[in-house]
């Protein structure tokens, strides 16, 4: 198929727990839509959106950010998975690294393994560290284990054998033997070529656990939508083809959040900001990341306390979002989240839920306006929200529904503040030198509160903040990672380039298969090296003077280097990046209109602020032009989101259309 041309329809989709966001480019035209998610079949909302936007036309390219994999893992609602592992090591998945997560917790907890002991089966075989075979995997044993796996009734299978990264033949053999059972199989060495049996086993198990659900979902979406090409966003901020994503869904675990960070970096870079904290608040959770110019990466991440050895953007998630449910705990404290009303039944004000949520609190306080919610496409039942809030007020001894609602907001903002401190202050970075980039449907309602608590110097709210993740997904580049294990001591530059050649062309081929022109594919090779005998590798670019760079990098990181000591190159890491040809369009709304500095008040609404009711002006975001300045309190309404401007804050629209909020000079908040 030909690559997408300029006049084709290119779509980005971000499916969240509550909303499904779609943005598109159709030649020079841009558009978007936001729909309620359909958690029982997430594809339904996507199809409905595509039908509304394009009627009978089919998009040429759809890039998809999905939470299907993550939710299946977190909610432990994946496939009935069987793990096949070297006999005697069936409990590695449960023992982990033996360490407890919190040193001073007298009652330490560890997450349950994804696969219970009864479905962790040992196979008689043994590989050694030098790739030699101690116990051959016999035909009889292959048959026996295949039978045992079959009897366990698997919907998916993970295979992780000791030392499979240095000799994969037994894993491959089991892969062939188990194929007849007709269920998807994950082989650990192919997915995560990391040494260390626990992390690799955890990655393979998670992949197998979510695979049937994800691959079926992606296949059906491709068929039913009839799109020319489907790609999926990965946790590392790049995209991959649908087939790869269906086979290795563990790579997409943080796809939505990665899209958000990618989108936020684009917006910030355009207005010259480097140090930002991204706050992506959706219906069920909030993701925060610290960015200094580019998104920090990690090679192992944890989801729900379980390690996954695939590359991803360094993102911290808390279970606090618009749909988070407020309740009283056993100790009599008001808790908000991590339980969420999700899309079904949703917050009380959506008409079906019976439990008070953060969104209900905003509605009761008047910050969310019923007439303007989602451009009026969705009705908000404020009275229903008030009723559940009154109930909560009685339980917590608050005097009114408004008081209870204000309490919920204080708690949920405290939760988010803690997450922000974890990624900044705890890593020695001062958030007061950062700009908070707030997006996601609900972030604009809490940005001022957080800026006050944490002390950000400024808040930036991009246009269509509720759709920024989808925009980041749309803008994602096809990215493929490859690792070439090497283990060579003091290798020559020629040897290294020779060894990189094979994997580089494999990556090029795979990216080209995504319909990308050869000249738009760039492959960079990094080498991971260490002094012989050392533990962790340092990553440096592959160049003729790599040895000198290694010494310099070691000096910078560890304050020492030894020019004479042998250096071991452990592996080559290749990253291929392919970009579709794209029209040069101004992605943000250009400010063509003459500069109108005085904003037009659209309405006056009643908002409960700091203990009393106030008449607060509302503005339509699309009526605010660059240079417009307004004072809080104010409610700024747009299609995908609402921004609350605290009485202590001023708002200015910058040249790119972003809202920039600052604490008003003469009013001074907490520092």
């Amino acid at each position, binding site marked *: 198929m030909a690559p997408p041309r300029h006049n084709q329809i290119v779509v980005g989709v971000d499916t969240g727990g509550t909303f499904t966001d779609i943005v598109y480019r159709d030649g020079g035209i841009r558009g978007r839509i936001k729909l309620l998610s359909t958690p029982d079949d997430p594809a339904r909302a996507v199809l409905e959106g595509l039908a509304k936007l394009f009627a009978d036309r089919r998009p040429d390219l759809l890039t998809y950010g999905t939470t299907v994999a993550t939710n299946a893992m977190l909610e432990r609602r994946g496939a009935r998975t069987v793990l096949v592992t070297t006999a005697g090591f069936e409990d590695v998945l449960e023992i982990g690294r*033996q360490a407890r997560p919190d040193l001073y917790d007298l009652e330490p907890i560890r997450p349950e393994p994804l696969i219970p002991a009864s479905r962790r089966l040992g196979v008689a075989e043994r590989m050694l560290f030098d790739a030699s075979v101690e116990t051959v995997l016999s035909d009889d044993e292959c048959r026996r284990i295949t039978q045992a796996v079959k009897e366990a009734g698997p919907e998916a299978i993970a295979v992780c054998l000791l030392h499979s990264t240095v000799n994969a033949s037994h894993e491959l053999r089991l892969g062939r033997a188990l194929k007849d059972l007709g269920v998807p199989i994950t082989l650990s060495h192919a997915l995560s070529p990391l040494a260390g049996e626990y992390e690799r086993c955890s990655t393979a198990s998670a992949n197998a656990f979510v695979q049937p659900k994800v691959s079926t979902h992606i296949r059906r979406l491709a068929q039913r939508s009839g799109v020319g090409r489907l790609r999926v966003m990965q946790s590392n901020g790049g995209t991959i083809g649908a087939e790869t994503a269906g086979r290795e869904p563990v790579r997409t675990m943080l796809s939505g959040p990665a899209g958000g960070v990618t989108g936020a970096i684009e917006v910030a870079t355009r207005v010259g900001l480097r140090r930002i904290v991204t706050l992506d608040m959706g219906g069920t959770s909030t993701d925060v990341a610290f960015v200094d110019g580019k998104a920090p990466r990690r090679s192992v991440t944890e989801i729900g306390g379980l390690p996954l050895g695939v590359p991803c953007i360094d993102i911290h998630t808390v279970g606090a979002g618009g749909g988070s449910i407020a309740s009283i705990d056993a100790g009599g404290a008001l808790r908000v989240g991590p339980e969420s009303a999700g899309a079904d039944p949703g917050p009380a004000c959506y008409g079906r839920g019976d439990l008070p949520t953060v969104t209900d609190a905003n509605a009761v306080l008047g910050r969310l306006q019923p007439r303007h919610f989602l451009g009026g496409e969705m009705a908000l039942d404020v009275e229903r929200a008030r009723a559940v809030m009154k109930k909560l007020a009685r339980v917590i001894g608050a005097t009114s529904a408004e008081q209870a609602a204000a309490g919920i907001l204080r708690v949920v903002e405290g939760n988010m503040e803690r997450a922000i401190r974890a990624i900044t202050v705890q890593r020695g970075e001062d958030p007061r030198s950062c700009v908070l980039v707030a997006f996601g449907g609900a972030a604009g309602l809490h940005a001022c509160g957080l800026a006050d608590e944490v002390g950000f110097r400024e808040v930036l709210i991009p246009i269509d903040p509720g759709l920024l993740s989808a925009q980041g997904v749309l803008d994602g580049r096809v990215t493929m990672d490859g690792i070439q294990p090497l283990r060579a001591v003091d290798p020559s530059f020629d040897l290294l380039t020779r060894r990189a050649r094979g994997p580089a062309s494999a990556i090029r081929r795979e990216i080209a298969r995504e319909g990308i022109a050869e000249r738009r594919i760039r492959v960079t090779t990094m080498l991971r090296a260490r002094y012989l005998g*050392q533990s962790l590798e340092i990553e440096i670019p592959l160049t003729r003077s790599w040895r000198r760079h290694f010494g310099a990098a070691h000096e910078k990181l560890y304050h020492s280097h030894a020019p004479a000591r042998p250096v071991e190159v452990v592996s080559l890491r290749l990253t291929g990046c392919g970009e579709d040809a794209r029209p040069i369009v101004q992605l943000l709304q250009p400010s063509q209109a003459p500069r109108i500095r005085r904003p037009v008040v659209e309405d006056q609404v009643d908002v409960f602020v700091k203990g009393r009711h106030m008449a607060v002006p509302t503005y339509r975001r699309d009526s605010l032009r660059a240079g417009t300045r307004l004072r809080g309190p104010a409610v700024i309404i747009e299609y995908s989101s609402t921004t609350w401007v605290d009485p202590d804050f001023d708002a200015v629209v910058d040249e790119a259309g972003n809202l920039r909020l600052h604490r008003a000079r003469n009013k001074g908040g907490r520092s």
Partner: protein
Amino acid sequence: MRPRLSPVDLELFANRLIGVADEMGVVLQAAGFSPNIKERRDFSCALFDPRGAMVAHAAHIPVHLGSTPLSVRAAIQQTRMEDGDIVILNDPYAGGTHLPDVTLVAPVFLTDGRKPVAFVADRAHHADIGGASPGSMALTTDIHQEGFRIPPVHLCRNGAFVRDTLELFLANTRVREERLGDLDAQVAALKAGAARIRDLMTRFGVTAVAQAMQELQDYSARLVAAFFAELPAGEWKAQDVLDDDGAGGTDIIIKAAIRRKGTRLEVDFDGSSPQVRGPLNANLAVTTSAVFYVIACLAGRRVPANSGMMTRVKIRAPQGSVVNCKYPSAVAGGNVETSQRIVDVLLRAFATALPGKVPAASCGTMTNVALGGFDPFRQRYFSYYETVGGGAGAGPDRAGANAMQTHMTNTWNTPVETLEAYYPLRVRRYAVRRASGGEGLHRGGDGIEREIEALAETQLTLLAERRDRGPYGLEGGGEGKAGCDRCTRAGSDRAMQIPAKVSLLLQPGDRVEVATPGGGGWGNALGTTSHAAGNRTRHKNEERSVVKTKRKRA
């Protein structure tokens, strides 16, 4: 006096200063050579004020908590440190804990300074420090048999190694390259820490950072005082025993009385056994660490670990006892085993003060396994050390966790794939020891079973506890299953039980299997436990009857 830091600045500085210690840990682990450092993370890093009081300790290994300040104090008192100097020490009778824990201390100077503005220290457990057997956890009867003893001396001057010290150190320990690599990493971590402190002082000013160092200690002291104020008035006692000392002595008593006096606490170990012949003696540094740890747990997770925590605590430990031993007693296991029992006793005493809030005993041992000898495949000497986790005690809120490092240690395991790539050893089995946790409303966690085969002639030293009697249950919960260790000789299929403290020469093909204790259960299995006041009496009686039984045994 300068005004106090605002709550925001206090929080920011707390995290910055703790961040210095954390970052040192990241460097030490990454640059480390031995699996014991890079995989198991058996090390700690800390930051000190110019007086030598601990300001921040990265959450690494609790048993190093209270002892690192004593090392820094010894280095300050016994040497003269200039800019670029590093002092090394491990002597348990001069600021150390047990010989394998080698501590490095460095002063931090500003470019134009004459006095240090801070100290940084790191302590790493070296997999060998000489002595009677590889791994230096030998079953000996005095300190000199245990290994190479280092009083505070200069390891570096002016930024370079002092050749005399380094060569003397390397000549007296096994596996030279590994020792050198780990020492290099320790030095790198100190340099990183010093650089970070200088950064902070440049960014925020020397006085502001100095003030923050003091206020962070005050803050911890206030939090601990608030916890003490919540305790009921009175005195709570408990005792427990160590199985044996590996040299003939059995049922070694650890006894503690805790008294609250206003917002101060006195912890009195009067009545504990005199120091023993075998290597189970704890010096005061180790005992202090155990007290530190228990207070940090009970006072809540938000108390930053520093010297401020201990300003309101008075420890009385009789000189010459197993919890405050005198030269030249052997101490290898005091740090790793006796420390765990001290925690068991302290928690049990606190359980009477705070009924229904304290968990049952965890496995109560680190199950130390040291293996070493000549590796014919790689043509070099090797020395490998590991500790094996066990079951955690069940608590009022939930069952105990399975197969985990508890209380005074939190080292990671060495991945099987790494272990086998480095040493002539093969792991045969690594499993959860099912049904070893104590019964109860909440079950104790299960222990671990681990079997290792020697591929070459290998000297094994095993040093483990809770093999005679399992960890106690609380509030009606049952005891965890005691540990059990066995050896299967090559060619035989019969496993023989071996003592928990033993030194054995393994031949190629011999296998040793350790099975670690489960945690104690919590609450009556019938679910009748309640926290009502009436039950407190029952609990006290139970306590007394346990004490009585123990006396009989002793």
